[in-house]
């Protein structure tokens, strides 16, 4: 009986309900799209910030990390020890990890910094580098190198030319694969794969040794420092150091952007909730004649109010569900437009939106309770 009454109520007044349904569905769509966006935006932004380059550095500790041309004996780290430790820990999203070994070699008589690294990882560390020519794809390529813009200018190098590197009494002949433009100190360096540099410096027993590791780790400030602490525990003999310029500024920026979007979303949330509330309240007041009639027929007020609450509750739930689907599609589209990548749908948006819509719809129908006090005759005569 209750269900049939409810069904008839919903079917019988399609015209009146359409305004309410439109309000609920679009309200739920806006709310769920923005909630999903707000939850997903931090992940996307931390990903975007990774173009800033490395945010963690592992170095042998306080001592100098460069192979200085002949003076102090360098302090280095075992390549396998460090890289294996990093590989075993993939807690937050690790964008790139590249080992580096620097030597100051000579081209002719001019000293130049040569950085030996894993070039495939180095590229992920510095996605903003502009390259003319081609990249060295393999970690074991011992014939090619990349040169910085200033190095290329100094020695008149272009992709394809050959370069002779001398380091004390060893030497290497390399082909320039590409010229890179970073706008930073990298423009003054030659980049070659790690084995080349290790071999160049082999008389000093450097094979399998590296000077430092640069890591680019994606995550919030707290996640990164937790990861750094974990890494420091695994490698107690070395120094794990977050690059403050990157991590701190990034954390502050993220905080501000999130706060901004969150407060705007909150405003819209309140506005949408108010809109749905007002519409439902108006709809409920329209029902007062039905209430009068039901009361006159002997319905108890709690049963009548229950009936109407069930009606608006069902309306809120259905509208919320449909709106949620629309909203998630909307946030999918927004993510694609803004970040060029999808913002994943969060399942928690569904219960939150539907719950909010049902609560707001029920709150809007609460004025009906007041009608319990009114005498049916007054309402039926149309005096209220």
């Amino acid at each position, binding site marked *: 009986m209750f269900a049939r009454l409810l069904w008839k109520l919903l079917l019988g007044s399609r015209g009146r309900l359409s305004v309410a349904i439109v309000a609920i569905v679009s309200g739920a769509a806006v709310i769920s799209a923005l909630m999903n966006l707000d939850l997903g935006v931090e992940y996307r932004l931390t990903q975007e910030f990774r173009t800033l380059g490395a945010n963690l550095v592992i170095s042998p500790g*306080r001592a100098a990390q460069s192979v200085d041309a002949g003076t102090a004996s360098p302090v280095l780290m075992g390549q396998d020890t460090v890289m294996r430790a990093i590989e075993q820990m993939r807690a937050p999203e690790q964008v790139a990890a590249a080992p580096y070994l620097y030597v100051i070699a000579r081209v002719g008589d001019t000293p*130049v910094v040569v950085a030996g690294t894993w070039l495939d990882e180095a590229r992920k560390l510095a996605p903003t580098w502009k390259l003319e020519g081609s990249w060295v794809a393999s970690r074991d390529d011992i014939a090619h190198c990349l040169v910085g813009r200033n190095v290329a200018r100094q020695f008149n190098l272009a992709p394809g030319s050959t370069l002779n590197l001398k380091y004390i009494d060893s030497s290497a002949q390399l082909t320039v694969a590409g010229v890179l433009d970073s706008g930073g100190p990298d423009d003054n360096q030659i980049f070659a794969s790690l084995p080349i540099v290790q071999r160049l410096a082999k008389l000093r027993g450097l094979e399998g040794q590296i000077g430092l590791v640069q890591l680019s780790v994606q995550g919030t400030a707290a996640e990164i420092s937790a990861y750094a602490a974990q890494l420091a525990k695994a490698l107690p003999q070395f120094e794990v150091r977050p690059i403050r310029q990157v991590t701190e500024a990034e954390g502050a920026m993220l905080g501000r952007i999130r706060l901004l979007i969150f407060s*705007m979303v909150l405003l819209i949330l309140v506005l*949408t909730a108010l*809109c749905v509330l*007002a519409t439902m309240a*108006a709809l409920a007041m329209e029902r007062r004649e039905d209430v009068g009639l039901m009361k006159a027929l002997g319905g108890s007020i709690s049963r009548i109010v229950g009936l109407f609450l069930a009606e608006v509750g069902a309306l809120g739930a259905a509208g919320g569900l449909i709106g949620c689907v629309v909203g998630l599609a909307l946030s999918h589209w927004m993510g694609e*437009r*803004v970040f060029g990548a999808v913002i994943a749908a969060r399942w928690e948006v569904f219960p939150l939106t539907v719950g909010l819509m049902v609560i707001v719809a029920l709150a809007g129908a609460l004025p009906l309770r007041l009608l319990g006090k009114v005498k049916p005759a007054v309402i039926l005569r149309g005096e209220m």
Partner: protein
Amino acid sequence: MFARLVGESFVRNPRRKVLTAAALVVGMAVATSTLTVALDVGDRLAREFRSFGANLLVTPQSDTLPVEIGGVDYRPVDEGSYLPEADLGKLKTIFWRHNIVGFTPFLDVPALVNNTQVTVIGTWYAHDVPVPDGSTFKTGVSITHPWWKISGRWFNDGADECVMGMAFAASHPEVAVGQTVYVAEDEISSSLTPLVVTGVVSTGDAEDKGILVPLSVAQKISGHAGEFRQLFVSALTKPADAFSERDPQSMTPTEYDRWFCSPYISSISLQIRQVLPGVDVRTIRRVADTEGRILSHVGMLLWMVTLAALLAAALAVAATSATTILERRAEVGIMKAIGATNVLVAGIFLAEQVMLAIAGGAIGFVLGVGLARILGQSVFGTPASVRIVLLPVVLGLAAIVAILGCLIPLRRAARFDPAPILRGE
């Protein structure tokens, strides 16, 4: 007669207007505040981005190749070229001078400090640079390197003081803040420069291993009076787009003017080259590209959120107007029964809506401005600036949504047969 009808409607039954008016006020307040914030946010975020440090690097054009690992230059002092410090004030005379937030010259000198080989870094902390127009501009690492943290205090410009890097302090436990260190250029140099240590700085980078001194002190130690080697410039820029990437040489004069008068990083670096002859200005891509991308993405995101806010506001107003008009069907019935045409009925309702929209929109605008100020204060620390331009926009928006909201119910009301409505069916 028409005016009296509309006026009476407000006087006789103000309660019915309250719902629509309230929706208008709240909706327009949200619209105003989100619009204000969205218009302001680009500038604010660009300024925030300066906490990542400089985005332009100025070096001598005819310089030899720097032998630099981890930010420390291993070249001897007598090699390479230098730039004159006296020219720096000219940076504040370029077209986009107000976009130059700060700049800091650096002069690295490999030297002996208490007989150990250390890089002595000469720089400014907060230096008053004389600008050709007669004013002074305070700049230095306090602005370009805001993440550097000091315990103790920074050196005074020009004084014989220094600040130790954290790693240097750790490896030289015998040196404490307040003590004096002795700096010599090399072993054979006879002159020792005594410097009082005033603090320990943590930079998170290669500077931690050296000591930082006022630029003038580094110039004295190295014998390069009035010169520096590198200049970091922090400038507020507009995110790069397809237009800014074009070669200025290939532009038509109008395009060139537009490019020159936009704060693109490429046009600012050209203007720096014009005032500082013989320099090479490079964009620090890592910072500039990230900034450009995030600024444009966050800007776009906020415009979408603003659009959602406008949509929600429109929806709120439209929904409430629609319900109030549905409630007044009986009134429509009476009017039509006594001979009002559809046009007159619609006219009365529309006039009411527009009056409500103007009143509600104006109140909403005031509330929204307050809201935007609070929002700006809590997010960026300074309230968002009020834009009066938005007032007509918001009022127009309010009128449009209020009219749109009552159009559909009015069209339905026009089809009503007065008799059944008056019977209450």
